[in-house]
């Protein structure tokens, strides 16, 4: 196990190098001149030259790449070009708000989708199953934007059940006052695709031999589903949920923009609009590293869920 983890960590190195090179050259070749963006519209040539010297832009590209790598390794990205806020501070101060809404969404989606999928898998082929599946396809065809716009209008503005938008300094107040509406909307939207997917996982299992044996020895259908099918179908379900985990960090950017939640996703969107390169680069690279580590953790988790899987 330890050997496996070490080897996987070692394999991250070339991938990470690729990510760094990709981001560096994307900005270098296709991005605007940082000095020009920083200096603004009305800047003298001296000012621009001074900024170029300060950022090391007058050096050859490999020296700049070295500076870039040093920034990554030392977690020192300096300040945001626009707000002059430390980039590391942006990370630490925005992440809690994002996690306050994304983690409940992840849990709620799974808690709703797994039983629904089991239910329709139990009634497979019936009118209930087919109508739920048709509703799922139709629900998935409507843009997430529409759900947010209408949900915010109906439940926040028209009925007044929830605040339209806002955020506070208190975690509990955020969780129970401001977060419920975005959480509910996102969970409902995520329900359709996840139910469809989990239903297919359950149905794949019901076709297998051990289920036929269980049926043959006279086990009731609910007991088969609960005791045999659920356990085996949980392996792909866990895989799918682990694939969703990296999205926890920036996946809620639309909700954050609509509900004025000061999270990481909204911060990146603002950074894109302001051409605030250091923020975009830092967030992209660190979240890529995090994604790779989470995928590794998910692979290790498999061996616990499914004893047949041996990590080598």
């Amino acid at each position, binding site marked *: 196990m330890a050997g496996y983890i070490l080897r996987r960590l070692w394999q991250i190195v*070339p*991938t*990470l190098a*690729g*990510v760094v090179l*990709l*981001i560096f050259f*994307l*900005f270098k070749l*296709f*991005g*605007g001149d940082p000095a020009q*963006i920083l200096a603004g519209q009305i800047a003298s040539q001296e000012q621009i030259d001074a900024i170029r010297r300060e950022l090391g832009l007058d050096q050859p590209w490999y020296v700049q790449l070295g500076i870039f790598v040093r920034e990554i390794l030392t977690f020192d990205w300096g300040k945001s070009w626009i707000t002059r806020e430390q980039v590391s501070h942006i990370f630490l101060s925005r992440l809690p708000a994002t996690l306050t809404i994304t983690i409940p969404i992840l849990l709620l989606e799974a808690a709703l989708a797994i039983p629904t999928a089991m239910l329709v898998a139990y009634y497979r082929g019936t009118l209930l199953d087919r109508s739920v599946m048709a509703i799922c*396809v*139709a629900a*998935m*065809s*409507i*843009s*997430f*934007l*529409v759900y947010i*716009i*209408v949900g915010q*209008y109906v439940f926040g*503005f028209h009925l007044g059940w929830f605040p339209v938008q806002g955020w506070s300094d208190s975690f509990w107040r955020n969780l129970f006052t401001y977060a419920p509406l975005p959480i509910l909307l996102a969970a409902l939207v995520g329900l359709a695709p996840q139910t469809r997917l989990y239903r297919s996982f359950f149905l794949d299992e019901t076709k297998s031999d051990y289920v036929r044996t269980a049926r043959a020895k006279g086990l009731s259908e609910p007991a088969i589903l609960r005791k045999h099918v659920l356990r085996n179908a949980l392996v792909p379900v866990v895989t799918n949920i682990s694939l969703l985990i*990296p*999205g926890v*960090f*920036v*996946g809620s*950017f*639309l909700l954050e*923009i609509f509900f004025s939640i000061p999270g990481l*996703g909204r911060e*990146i*969107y603002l*950074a*894109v*609009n302001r*051409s605030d*390169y250091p923020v*975009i*680069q830092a*967030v*992209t690279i660190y*979240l*890529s590293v995090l*994604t*790779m580590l989470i*995928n590794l953790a998910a692979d290790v988790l498999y061996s616990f869920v499914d004893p047949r899987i041996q990590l080598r």
Partner: protein
Amino acid sequence: MAAVLDVTPENAWTALWRRLHQDRVGAVSLGIVAAYLVMILFAMAGWLAGGWSVEVGVPYANPSFLGERPNLEAALQKRSQRQGKVPDLRDIDPLAPRYDEWAKRTQELKSTEPERSLTLPWGGDRWGRDVLDKAIKGSQVSIAVGVVAALCATLIGTLLGALAGFYGRWVSDLLEWLYNVFTSIPAILLIFTLAAVLRSGPFASVFASGIWTVVIILAFTGWTGMYRLVRAEYMKHRSREYVLAAQAIGASAASRMFVHILPNVSHVILVQLSLLVVAFIKVEVVLSFLGLGVPIDMVSWGTMLAEAQNELIIGKWWQLAAATVFMAIFLTAFSMLTDSLRDALDPKLR
């Protein structure tokens, strides 16, 4: 006996056509998608919704079926037009000596304010443009972006996947590395990074108009799934007998890759392509909503939704409804068609 031997095997594509016809859901979906395509062609030719940007109605004109509904915004604008009498500033205005000259030039110029109608078939937006026309033109732009981007992503993914799967060894290693790099960056961050780079970089002015920015963003970030599928298929096919036979009669590597193997994996590509179209249309809508998609002189479902957010608060729901309905019908039909296509192309079900 001879009659039995005479039966020629059915062509795969004729079989697909026959099965799509037999599948009722598939046939209906195909009909809807075809109707959209006809609508798009008409819109491209300018026969339909050509004047979507003309302000033909009063601001927020009511839909025809709600003609009686009070329209506060239009009434307010009418009143401000009637009160148009300017107070006399002749004594204090330093520009007063030129008043006569301007009055003369005003007389020479003829401006006609077109008659704005009070109602439009499906209502009007903030500037009095016809929402139905906008929805049709928006369908054209959104679907075109989705399809063109999906074709570009398919081209990249198929080419790289074919190379990796066919040659294996270091080519495969290199492309796998590239694949790992692209998939380890969360998709939305890669999209945002590209958007940031393309909007401020030297290419900003090149792509400023038209749909190319968003097409490039989508194609550049969306090729990975196609690559993985095609690579797996090519690995399966490269040592099959028909490919070895082609090699034996001297077919070049390129010929084996694209003349012999490609038609045999095209069904996988086709299904993945239509999945990409649905996914890309959804992303385009979000990007255009955020102002990172199509330029402001174009209309897409996303820009319509962006306007609809503020309209809803003052009770003008028709633009939201139009964009949502046009989009939902197309995406539902297209998803259903994809499902039928997958079933019809599945050799196990034959």
